[in-house]
């Protein structure tokens, strides 16, 4: 099972955190600090796995961002690499060649996508198209709701004007 997902920038800034196992706020800060120290200092040619507190952290760097997932010792590290790539591809498709700024300003979107991909630390959907479709459907629900509110506001405004 995946215990948590972290997105950390090259400079050590946290861009996204998702915890599937309980960690208190204090522990979270500590975990992030420890792992940034471990991962950001590793050279480019080294393997993508770090052993940490009896668990394994699988990380992969995309441009300036490190995607990290912490798993149990008996999980399949190579598969986690695929899951990270899976997530990145969905993000890429959603934002249209995603960059770090997209994830900063639309962090909630990144979370919505992640929630369609993983639940309870397990993979939910192997099809990128299905994930994209589900996220888009929910986005359009939000849009419709917004339009309705604004049209109601307009009507009220018009009535008031009359």
């Amino acid at each position: 099972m995946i215990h948590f997902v972290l997105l950390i920038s090259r400079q050590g800034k946290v861009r996204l955190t998702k915890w599937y196992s309980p960690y208190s706020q204090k522990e979270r800060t500590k975990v992030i600090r420890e792992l940034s120290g471990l991962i950001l200092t590793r050279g480019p040619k080294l393997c993508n796995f770090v052993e940490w507190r009896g668990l394994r952290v699988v990380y992969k760097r995309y441009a300036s961002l490190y995607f990290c997932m912490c798993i149990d010792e008996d999980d399949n590290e190579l598969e986690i690499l695929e899951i990270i790539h899976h997530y990145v591809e969905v993000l890429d498709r959603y934002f249209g060649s995603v960059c770090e700024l997209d994830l900063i300003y639309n962090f909630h979107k990144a979370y919505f996508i992640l929630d369609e991909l993983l639940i309870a630390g397990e993979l939910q959907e192997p099809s990128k198209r299905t994930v994209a479709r589900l996220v888009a459907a929910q986005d359009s629900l939000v849009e419709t709701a917004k339009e309705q509110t604004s049209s109601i506001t307009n009507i009220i405004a018009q009535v008031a004007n009359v």
Partner: protein
Amino acid sequence: MNPFSSGTRLRDMIRAIRACKTAAEERAVVRKECAAIRASINEDDQDYRHRNLAKLMFIQILGYPTHFGQMECLKLIASAGFPEKRIGYLGLMLLLDERQEVLMLVTNSLKQDLNHSNQYIVGLALCALGNICSAEMARDLAPEVERLLQFRDPNIRKKAALCSIRIIKKVPDLAENFINCAASLLKEKHHGVLITGVQLCADLCKVSSEALEYFRKKCTEGLVRTLRDIVNSPYSPEYDISGITDPYLHIRLLKLLRILGQGDADASDRMTDILAQVATKTESNKNAGNAILYECVETIMSIEDDGGLRVLAINILGKFLSNRDNNIRYVALNMLMRATTLDAQAVQRHRATILDCVKDSDASIRKRALELLYLLVNENNVKPLIKELIEYLEVSDQEFKGDLTAKICSLVEKFSLEKIWYIDQMLKVLSEAGNFVKDEVWHALIFVISNASDLHGYTVRALYRAFLTSTEQETLVRVAVWCIGEYGDMLVNNVGMLDIEDPITVTECDAVDAVEVAIKRHTSDLTTKAMALIALLKLSSRFPSYSERIKGIIVQNKGNLVLELQQRSIEFNRILQKHQKIRSALVERMPVLDEATFSGRRAGSLPTAISTSSGAPSNLPNGIAKPATAPIPDLLDLSSDDVPAPSSSGGDFPQDLLGVDLSPTLAPSGAGKPPKASTDVLLDLLSIGTSLPVQTGSSASDILSSSQDDKAPFANFNGLASLSSLSANATSPVNAAPMMDLLDGHGPGPQKPEENGQAYPSLVAYESSSLRVMFNFSKQPGSPQTTLIQATFTNLSSNVYNDFLFQAAVPKFLQLHLDPASSNTLPASGDGSITQNLKVTNSQHGKKSLVMRVRIAYKTNNKDVLEERQINNFPQNL
């Protein structure tokens, strides 16, 4: 409208935070935003709730506290619209976790949303439940989730399946409710549902043996068929990853098959064909394919199999190991480690490659490889492998040296074929990475050296040589100093020269120089310095002509700030000055150390004191030889129970004293006997109290009182060392406990005599040239708090005392009653006495001891005399 919340949108806030140049600036912006959000929350501002929460989430990701926003999540979740709920659930998952009480409040909203007509809202609720639900919520909402496993939309079914995993992990009792629904998910065609269903089955098997049996019987065939279908399926763009259709599904199916096949030959047999197919047909040039192969290998090695498949699996790992991709090599090492238990011979073939991996530049790979190599070492290959590892030790990274040293030492000890090989290898490790060597390792080395009597000369010379070249390694210095102290004469006279040795000329002066270097090194710690001091003392006897110089070095430590060193140097100085005659006997060579006892202790089983002491007396020529043993804690055990510890060594290693003293009571067989032990202690204590002068009695009780207060029993050991070894026994916590009971007069058994008041020694409360006051104590049965004191006054002068008046005062926790005196005239020259009875009630009985201020007034030769005195030396337990 709130003046703060008006302006900033989420985007503006993020921009403002990103524009901050320093952490302080960022904190200021965040503080301002948080203030605005709080204000808005207090106004219950509905329009901005959803924006506020979004901002809070961003602030939370940055690591600032956001607990004040938790209720906002609940409000958003409770509102009707999808956008509010969506952001509310996201906030819930980010801002809360299962351990917060607030989370319980959301149970009802979740229940409603799980039954909502909008499937996306159902999806949101399932996602939140799956990610953060607590055990209580799991119990409350399990029926809803169970129902949703049959929901018409597959996207809800898959979410419900993962949610069920969380539920059964939190509440394993609920597992049986999910077994049937989970089994039906395995027949699904939708990949999302299938993947999550397989995962759910795997997790059910982990928590319920009933589920495992059920799936093994009913589903193995089906799963094998599904795996075959997916392996042979034609290209499907939706699920294709580098030429393989849905590797995630492959992996999960293999994992579930592993669980089903483990320990069941029949189920294993049914899956061998498809496993062989996956192992041979899967493309291994991309990560996805390797991930499947990796999983397949693990399954093959876990299930019951005759070995044909295993050869295939280990060959795959061999291929992995020679892959250039570090990730693949890493997992190969990982798997080979598990394979060693199955087929060590096959793994041995890759030894050379694994050894290369130990020297890899990648720390993760090095660590794995070292652990694997450790398992592969046997009698046949230990010598070359250790040689390689020690050579690598010289060039390895600092942070890797700790691990590497520990493993080398452990291997060398495990496979110590010949003593000379063991000593050689350990010396190499000590010189290369002595600072990483653990205490028990160099202790063990000293044991081995001590036992290898034919190698003493060789070892001390080798150590001397190593010491000259590298004084940076603390443990090397210690062992060298110990050996020079013990075998210094062999160093100088080239005793026991081996053929392989280069001749070396060391003068007595050189040997003393070496120890002097060790004691003066700035990096030497207390242990090293203490060992060096002892070595010097020993050398003074080995090389009498250097005695004066050694004395000079020892005296330099007379002012050392560390009490231990200061005391030792003063004592040793005395030995050198005053006790020339016994010196050579004092510092004789250590007797051969008992390896069996030592290894027994290392294995974690404390030898009983009986077994230790049986060997000790014959081994030890004299009890005073102990200064030399002091640095090695374990040695002390051998000698600590034969003779009363001289003050010079007893205090050195309180832990070990303690360890020995405790062992009779800790040993399981002794569990029934402690009363006996403590009675002995008691008797001894009492005899001390009666036979020794009052002052000693009270100091003994002081020690007892401090250990009663639980104040660092170790601290007492220095003081105790001067008492008999039996009283040392008394302070060890285990024995002290029954003791205190005894003295309290509350416990059963041996303390009875106390209660009858027989055992209190008389006390000379006051004595001057003219007057002596004796106190006799007794207790009334049944009232331990009250002490009856009979005071007897004796006139030591030659004049009669008239108008004799005795007065006494006590602190508040005591009550004092004075009976009238027998007379007010005290005859001269002890020719008669006055007695007076006192009754003292101690309200802090057992905690505080008596204390009293007395005033005695009388007239002699028509002169008024007044004498005053405070009496503090009452027996402890009154």
